[in-house]
């Protein structure tokens, strides 16, 4: 794990990926099977809010929708889960990831929680999963709490959510037997502050031309310090190495190995589960590099103010609603969504923007005109694809490739 960035092996990113896998294996998610076997109290959540609190409580938690990835799409069972959900008679238009998660839930394949924490974020599909969890009979004995997040992003709305989270502490303590040590919580928050600062800086590095790394690293970095090792010093150390390695590449003006970067674009959504069938082909055919996706976005991560209990939770609310990608973009006005796309286009010096228009993202689908008009004003080629970033059967990677290829050609980028 200990690599000096100034003396890097050629496959340093391979090593960083392996170390990320280690971090993940040692995370709550990675050790979930062990917790279940040991009868450790577990918390189920509908979203990836406030990981700092769970880290401080040393309380295993998972967010249900992510299980659609871990328990279905990442193990090659996504289509099966999606079809299974459809047979249950749910919403045919629901996001495939949420379908998969709801299917795993209905089939009793998710860990039994001692407590369920739900918020009204981020999208209709995500909150619909709340109802599935709340009313799943085998989980009837689990303690449940449901919180409301405001669509507003003013101070009062942050205090509103933060204060509700203060109530979650005694709730979790009662339901799980854990006791929050506030000094420990502050330590975790301060470590998390360092991580988010570093995360932001790392995402900033990726703006360099040529791009030092593929877009996937934005998401991996996010997962590393938000999902796998939030508030853990080993997470910070891993991110520091990733940062130092990438910084060196930027200084050396090194782009992605083996690719002559000709077209810089952003895939403004979640990276697809079928990325390997699309992005390498675009790199090889057009020298087109996907710089950044919605999760790898360099969102401003509000600092957690650890001066008082209330300030901690108010700033955690800010971090969740303003910093956390997707929550930030979906649970807000179209102007935030469009503004972030414009920010990416300008700061990453994109030649083109691609809006995948994932089938589950209804709010994004209702913002196309706003984003499209903005890019027309900016004079930047813009494409709406219309695909399912999880289930490739909706629109195959080949068809998506053809659409993007035609777009590059029509906009003159392919010939430059």
């Amino acid at each position, binding site marked *: 794990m200990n690599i000096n960035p100034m003396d890097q092996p050629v496959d340093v990113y391979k090593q960083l990926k392996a170390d990320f896998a280690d971090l993940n294996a040692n995370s709550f998610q990675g050790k979930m099977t062990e917790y279940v076997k040991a009868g450790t109290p577990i918390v189920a959540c509908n979203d990836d809010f406030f990981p700092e609190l769970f880290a401080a409580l040393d309380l295993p938690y998972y967010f249900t929708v992510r299980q659609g990835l871990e328990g279905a799409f990442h193990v090659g069972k996504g289509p099966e889960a999606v079809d299974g959900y459809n047979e249950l008679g749910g*919403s045919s238009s629901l996001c495939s990831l949420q379908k998969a998660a709801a299917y795993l839930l209905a089939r009793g394949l998710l860990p039994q929680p001692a407590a369920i924490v739900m918020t009204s974020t981020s999208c*209709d599909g995500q909150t619909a999963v709340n109802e*599935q969890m709340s009313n799943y009979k085998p989980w009837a004995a689990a303690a449940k709490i449901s919180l409301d997040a405001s*669509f507003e992003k003013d101070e009062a709305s942050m205090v509103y959510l933060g204060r509700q989270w203060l109530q979650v502490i005694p709730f979790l303590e009662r339901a799980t037997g854990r006791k929050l040590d506030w000094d420990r919580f502050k330590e975790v928050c301060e470590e998390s502050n360092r991580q988010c600062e570093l995360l932001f800086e790392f995402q900033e590095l990726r703006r360099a031309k040529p791009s030092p790394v593929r877009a996937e690293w934005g998401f991996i970095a996010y997962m590393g310090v938000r999902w796998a090792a939030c508030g853990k010093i080993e997470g910070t150390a891993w991110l520091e190495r990733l940062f130092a390695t990438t910084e060196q590449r930027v200084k050396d003006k090194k782009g992605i190995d083996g690719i002559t970067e000709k077209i810089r674009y952003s895939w403004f959504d979640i990276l697809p589960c079928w990325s390997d069938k699309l992005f390498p082909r675009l790199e090889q055919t057009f020298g087109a590099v996907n710089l950044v996706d919605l999760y790898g976005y360099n969102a401003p991560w509000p600092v957690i103010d650890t001066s008082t209990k209330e300030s901690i939770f108010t700033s955690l609310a800010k971090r969740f609603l303003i910093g956390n990608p997707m929550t930030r973009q979906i649970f807000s006005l179209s102007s935030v969504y469009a503004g972030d796309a414009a920010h990416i286009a300008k700061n990453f010096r994109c030649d083109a923007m691609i809006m995948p228009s994932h089938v589950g*993202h*209804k709010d994004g689908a209702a913002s196309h005109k706003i984003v499209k008009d903005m890019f027309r004003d900016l004079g930047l080629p813009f494409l*709406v694809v219309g695909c399912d970033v999880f289930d490739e059967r909706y629109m195959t990677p080949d068809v998506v490739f053809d659409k993007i290829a035609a777009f590059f050609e029509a906009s003159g980028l392919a010939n430059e």
Partner: protein
Amino acid sequence: MRSGIQSPVYDKFAQLAGTLLNPSVEEWKQQGRRVMGYFCLFIPEELFIAAGFLPFRMRGIGSCGTAQADAYFDSKNCYFVRHCFDQALTGQYHFLDGLVVGTGCDHIRRIYDNWQHAPLKTPLLHLLNHPRTMGTPEMQGEPMISYYRAQLARLKERIENEFGVEVTVPRMRKAIKLCNETRRLQRQLYELRKADHPPITAAETALVMLAGTSAPKEQYNNDLRVLLAELVASPGIKRDYKARLMIVGPAIEDPNFYDLIERGGGCVVVDDTCFGARTGSAVVDEMSEDPLRAIAKFHVLDTVFCPKINGAHVQRIKVIADAIQDYRVGGIIGQGYVACDPWGTSYALLGPHLKAAGTPFLRLDREYVSTESGQLQTRIQAFLETVGGQV
């Protein structure tokens, strides 16, 4: 389907329900008065009435397509929203002095963004945050009620400042009483449908309810009292039917949908829909010292919710169980639009629950307009055959 009702008052309701710029709205505007449009049920019309506005519940009636709106919303978005927005883009909502959009679902809240972007020149455009959870029973609606009250206070202040009006406590109290009276009268209308042979059909009831979304409340209440008296005195519709049904789901504007069911031999006696019985499911506390808080509490805790509110499923189960008992419902039809995740997902819970309870359940995904499709008809008829023997 018509009951054969001969009533000028009913004809008036049907006329009001049939168009956006109906005679009531026209008359109101001719008097130089203001109209406030709003999406959805949890936006308090009491506030608008107290400010001197005519509350107008946004609808897509009259829309034949979504050609204009489709530039803003795509096929993944809700039909209701697209048709309403199309009406706005084609100038049908020119009479609005304001529009308040709730943060209910992903589709409706984007109307706010697109209305602003188009831009549609409505003097006031406001996005109102409505809590999307009832919390837990121990919370008793807090802190959601206080937060929503603050949101309402902000809207009230904005209306006062931008239109130079004053929304006083007495005016709010008066408006609450007026709206509660509408709710009570509408419940009486539904009560009549508990009879073996209801005096009014489901399609006619729908028109009466829809008329209430765009008529001045005093006038509507007076007319509804007259209609109720007429209906009480009527013998009821003498016809055989195969099953007494309840319709569940989002907004139904097209009475033909009910006709389709009733022509097939069903008798729709009650519903839980946005423009239907959900409207009058509860009343606002008239005695509260803080009317704004009373309104907030009503919309956070007391009324019947759609599935975009976390916790609504348990409530819906009870509403349905009560309806089965009170209205002697023999089967439930859950309808909705393809893109509606909250309702679509809720049926995955409701279907198995009803099946376990032995209540026949049919789920229908439908278009916003053109509900007279042969496919729907066939499915409804097949359902009625299965339910028929159980009534």
